[in-house]
């Protein structure tokens, strides 16, 4: 931490003899749908990145219509939060059609900026939708300060670094170039340099750099060598086959370090993730950033924050390149993800303090007698055993079986709309 405590007046100052952080980084969250966008903002994201129906890299996500974007921006504005749209494909000639109109529509929807990899889209945006900020996507695998300076000279507002860039490298980039830097802090990641992998093109005829990635890197392969024309296996029966599956990134413990480095935006990956995931991860990082900035000298990572992140994780996690090059223990062999420890079972719609009755929208099966946990930005997590459950007509239920069904039950702790209810998986 010694390194993290170097003085930098732009980042911190003394207030009544106590050190506080005056430059708080942006907490940037993913949202694959309007509902997830609202959850991300409500749970504390300063900015949210979303994908449109075209020019983005997740062709399997729900993605936003221009109308959805407008609604998302209006919602975010109420919280002073920003919306960025990913337009980070590497375009082929045919993708030029409709680009101008699309960028103008995004600009018209009030979006703050776009996340872009291809100079075609950068230049078109600059010319035809000049109000949009331009952020260079991690797809450009930006890994050195000279290239950062190149993009600064080109007039970009922000650069997203390659996942391979470490903390010390970030420091030099901040020192050498005056441009906003965004770095990933949490989520799944490519094991290849982003943009430099076309496994999907070869294996499934789907273009990875236009949203068709089918994650062939996470499949199993057998490693051989050719010796005098003979094929010799380089694996044994005691071990799993060769794979290129990285553990997910988790930099929660490095957040103080990143704040001290002056990183401008801390990015959570995962436009394909659930609202439970978005809410959980955003709320933990919100707490970490706020706690550190309020009192950096007495800051400690709380065990419950780490436990909380673990509740929605479906892979093991690691710090990847932040401190040092990742070793073999930061990869997974023979593991292909797992069920999360908890599942999201309900969303609070209303709470009546007089009757202590909570009104809840069902999101997964639960029944009276189940032990559940509530969490949300206004409350400390707590667990209760569910008492009798009623439907909207006051009829007692043996279980809440139907997705989106509105149910009520008694809860002595106060709850707020958008608080979430989760249940431990068996």
């Amino acid at each position, binding site marked *: 931490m010694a390194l993290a405590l170097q003085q930098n007046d732009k980042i911190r100052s003394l207030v009544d003899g106590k050190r506080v952080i005056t430059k708080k980084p942006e907490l940037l969250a993913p949202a694959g749908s309007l509902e997830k966008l609202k959850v991300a903002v409500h749970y504390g994201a300063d900015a949210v990145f979303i994908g449109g129906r075209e020019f983005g890299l997740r062709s399997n996500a729900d993605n936003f219509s221009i109308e959805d974007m407008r609604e998302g921006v209006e919602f975010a504005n109420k919280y002073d939060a920003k919306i960025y749209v990913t337009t980070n494909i590497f375009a082929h000639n045919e993708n030029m059609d409709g680009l101008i109109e699309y960028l103008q529509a995004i600009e018209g929807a009030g979006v703050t900026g776009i996340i872009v990899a291809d100079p*075609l889209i950068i230049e078109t945006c600059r010319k035809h939708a000049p109000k949009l900020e331009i952020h260079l996507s991690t797809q450009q695998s930006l890994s050195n300060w000279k290239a950062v300076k190149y993009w600064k000279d080109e007039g970009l507002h922000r650069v997203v670094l390659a996942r391979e860039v470490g903390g010390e490298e970030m420091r030099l980039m901040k020192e050498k170039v005056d441009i906003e830097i965004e770095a990933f802090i949490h989520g799944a990641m490519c094991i290849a*340099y982003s943009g430099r992998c076309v496994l999907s093109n070869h294996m499934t005829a789907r273009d990875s750099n236009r949203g068709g990635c089918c994650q062939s890197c996470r499949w199993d392969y057998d490693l051989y060598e050719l010796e005098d024309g003979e094929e010799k296996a380089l694996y044994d029966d005691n071990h799993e086959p060769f794979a290129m599956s990285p553990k997910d990134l988790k930099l929660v413990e490095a957040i103080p370090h990143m704040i001290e480095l002056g990183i401008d935006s801390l990015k959570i990956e995962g436009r394909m993730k659930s609202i439970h995931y978005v809410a959980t991860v955003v709320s933990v990082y919100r707490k970490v950033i706020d706690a550190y900035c309020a009192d950096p000298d007495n800051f400690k990572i709380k065990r419950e924050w780490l436990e909380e992140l673990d509740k929605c994780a479906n892979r093991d996690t690691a710090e990847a390149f932040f401190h040092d090059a990742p070793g073999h223990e930061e990869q997974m062999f023979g593991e292909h993800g797992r069920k999360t420890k908890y599942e999201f079972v309900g969303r609070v719609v209303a709470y009546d303090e007089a009757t202590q009755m909570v009104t809840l929208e069902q999101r997964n099966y639960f029944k009276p007698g189940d032990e559940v946990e509530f969490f949300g930005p206004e409350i400390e997590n707590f667990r209760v055993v569910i008492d009798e459950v009623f439907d909207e007509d006051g009829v007692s239920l043996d279980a809440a079986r139907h997705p989106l069904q509105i149910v009520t039950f008694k809860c002595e702790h106060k709850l707020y709309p958008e608080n979430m209810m989760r249940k431990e998986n068996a």
Partner: protein
Amino acid sequence: MKKPELLVTPTSVAHIEALLEAGADAFVVGEQKFGLRLAGEFTVAQIKEATALVHAAGKKIYVAVNALFHNDLIDDLDAYMVEVAKLEVDGFIYGDPAVIMACRENDITIPLHWNPETTATNWFTANYWGERGANRAVLARELSMEEVIEIKENANVAIEVQVHGMTCMFQSKRPLLGHYFLYQDKVMEVENRKDNRNMFLHDDERNNKYPIYEDANGTHIFSPNDMCIIDEIDELMDAEIDAFKIDGVLQTADYITQVTALYRKAIDAYVDGTYDDERDALREAVEAIQPAHRPLDTGFIFKETVY
């Protein structure tokens, strides 16, 4: 009719002599510290020697500086480019904009070839880099014939297309082979296999073999087939594509030389009007020297990709 430049990747200075004999017009050299997936390693002294040889024959030589650079190599890159520029090579091949900055800051005026491998996919972006010092774009290998030709029709820079050899599918900064051996508790294997370039991954479902190796730039994985369009150059010739590249990474010097001679024949025959009589024989000649574990295909030139 204009003949495209026949661009090849020598494994050594001596190999350049054989390739000149075989009819090559231009050469890619460099070292793995700065260049990606080269067929051979060339020190600056060897580049000097190679440049003299190539220029004496009236041909061109390009130096690869197309790695993805981290901060630690930025100063070395500057020094290297300044030194190599003095040799009056005919071009630098780059992907990282740090190379453009190095040229600007050191008044290097040697032309640049934009080659970011997988991401050179449209003519607008080729022209964008053209306005920033590139006089050539090396197209992504994942494009169709139609896309290649549309790029050529709209490009203000020369267009280079790979016509033969394996293509890179994947580059990771992580040493994935070393990691796999460590995972298997085989520390000795990691040491023993530092320069081993005859490993492959087998994909059961597709029954494909993907060559894989590690070097200073990380781990590289290659296509299961060697692309070969020696019998399908018509449209590229008619479109006047500026350079045909034969990529010799992971091939023997002899093989590269023989393939070069065959493409020389193909290009000349096309211009002479005798290509139709020779194309099948040329294809068969490649098939005859093809290693057993390397099937031929036509890359993405005639393949549909969705997303």
